[in-house]
């Protein structure tokens, strides 16, 4: 009877929409608060702890008048809350200050270095997902077999091996000894600067320019650092996939499917794998965010001109604006990916709705 159903379903739809809107509002608020927290931390590090920022500008032999004038000009005589407010306004209007070591604005530097990191981390996560998920599924479906043992060892090594060390060993073996891959940097020196940066992603730019040689050269340079990063995400993704799959395979509906005579391949890839796709998205998101962080070490090892290398160079030069700027950008991307995968989980999993 339509008369009794219509108000009911309208009510349900409205309630569902309200709940969805509430979830979105909650998401926006938590992301905003977390960003604010990140800003508070970088502000705190930059203004409160280190050596007097005024002395850093005027030098320690400046007279008291010069010192006081600089202090007022920098706004440091105002209450901390006001200073923090100015800082937040500056950051949101895209002003992260000047880098002392490069002489450019930090924002300009970061937008120049970020694509290299993005390219490496993306290839890394592709390696991690394309190998890690199937390996985890196989390990779970043959629990206790040799391949399961190998994957467990790989998973443990992913937790206990320093990324920079693996990168160095890789360089010594595959570059110096076997000559299979290109060395540090994104390209061989004689290819450098031949392709005009359009996206900043060398693989894309070289293809757009039709330079196949440069494309291949970029790949030989990218493959080792991306594989090292990929190894760590593979270890994590395979471990999580295995444990999710083991959970599913012990469920009764799997037993029922087996009893009905469903082929094992279908049981594993449809019955057991389908429900774990949603939690896997969260794992992959976390792993991708982790790779952005891991690239700091890897870029130092491979002299990769990305944001991590920029950060470590700035650290050694005590270039605080650059340090805080890159911390802020990496932190913001990290938080954003984290929260997005959290929301995706809630949107895609019918039980969490």
């Amino acid at each position, binding site marked *: 009877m339509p008369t009794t159903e219509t108000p009911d379903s309208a009510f349900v739809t409205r309630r569902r929409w309200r709940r969805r809107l509430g979830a979105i509002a909650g998401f926006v608020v*938590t992301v905003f*608060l*977390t960003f604010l*927290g*990140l800003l508070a*931390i*970088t502000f705190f*590090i*930059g203004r409160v*702890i*280190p050596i007097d920022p005024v002395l850093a500008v005027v030098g320690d032999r400046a007279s008291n008048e010069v010192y006081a004038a600089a202090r007022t000009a920098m706004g440091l005589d105002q209450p901390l809350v006001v200073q923090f407010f100015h800082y937040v306004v500056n950051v949101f209007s895209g002003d992260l200050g000047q880098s002392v070591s490069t002489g450019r604005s930090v924002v300009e530097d970061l937008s120049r270095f970020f694509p290299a990191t993005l390219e490496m981390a993306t290839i890394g996560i592709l390696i991690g997902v394309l190998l890690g998920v199937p390996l985890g599924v196989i390990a779970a479906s043959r629990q206790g077999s040799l391949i399961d043992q190998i994957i467990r060892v790989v998973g*443990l*090594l992913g*937790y*206990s*091996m*320093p*990324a*920079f*060390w693996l990168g*160095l*060993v890789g*360089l*010594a073996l595959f*570059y*110096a000894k076997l000559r299979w891959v290109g060395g540090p940097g994104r390209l061989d020196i004689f290819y450098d600067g031949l392709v005009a940066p359009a996206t900043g992603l060398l693989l894309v730019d070289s293809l757009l320019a039709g330079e196949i040689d440069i494309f291949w050269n970029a790949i030989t340079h990218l493959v080792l650092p991306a594989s090292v990063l990929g190894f760590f995400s593979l270890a994590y993704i395979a471990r999580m996939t295995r*444990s999710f799959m*083991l959970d599913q395979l012990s469920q009764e509906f799997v037993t029922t499917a087996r009893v009905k005579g469903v082929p094992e391949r279908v049981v594993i890839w449809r019955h057991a794998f389908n429900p774990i796709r949603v939690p896997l998205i969260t794992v992959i998101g976390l792993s991708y*965010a*982790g790779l*952005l*962080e*891991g690239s*700091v*070490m890897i870029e*130092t*090892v491979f002299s990769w001109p990305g944001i991590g290398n920029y*950060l*470590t160079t700035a*650290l*050694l030069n*005590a270039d*605080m604006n650059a*340090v*805080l700027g890159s*911390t802020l950008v*990496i*932190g913001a991307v*990290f*938080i954003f990916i*984290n*929260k997005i995968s959290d929301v995706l989980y809630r949107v895609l999993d019918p039980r969490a709705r």
Partner: protein
Amino acid sequence: MSTRDWLLEDSPHSRWQANVGRAYRVFTALLRNPLSVLGGIIILALVLTAIFAPWLAPYSAIGQDLANRLAPPSSTHLMGTDELGRDIFSRVIWGSQITLTIVGLVALISAPLGLLVGAVAGYFGGWTDRLLMGFTDIFLSMPKLILALAFVAALGPGINNAIIAIAITSWPAYARIARAETLTIRNSEFIAAVQLQGASPLRVIVGHVLPLCTSSMIIRVTLDMAGVILTAAGLGFLGLGAQPPLPEWGAMISRGRTFILDQWWVATMPGFAIIIVSLGFCFLGDGLRDVLDPKNEGK
């Protein structure tokens, strides 16, 4: 009555007997798992190496022998020598002291801090909880390594500041655990009984809530130690942790970077030490989790 019977007695006569008995049960359960035994042996070896480094190391950690620069591994120099002719094997042995100090201090600073924040938030609930946990969540959702890097940049390079930076970034996870545990025991009858006897919140938290959080805390801290070692080594590698000539493993790898193409042993050898010790903590942590927290078995 044998010692074993006394330890396993069902109705212990004193608190001391109950505690020792429980420790004994955990210990025997750990012995049944080969990997956790291996982990325990590795950690024990690390501690012994650190204590007896002066007698175990064949050479000094900082004594230079420029005639013997960059010598490959041999019977006189088991892991070869570095660019100043220092014996890498001896430096790895001395380095165990630094690693143990870092791990120990980080655990001593961050675990109690996290415990306290989590227990207070869980016990009082309401706005205290929301405030403290909001703060914790903000810290939790930030990249740990980057945050530690920024803190070290501000505090200045050095091993003490590295320890502080790592501790600052690792307490939030412990606060989450302590809060979850506190929430499950807050409404138990024994807590109500203590409260009715007029115990102050401080007394309830310290005397009755925190002791029940310790086992999940020990598991988590042990498992986290591998990560702490890696972060500390990473800071050392970037030149922000232990400063030369200290034989810190990460800093040693960093020195060997220049020679990686020809004298591979300078950079690789300390890496094996890092891997073995981190694996030891992973094995022991996994074993402890299986024994103390059977819910998660097999994961």
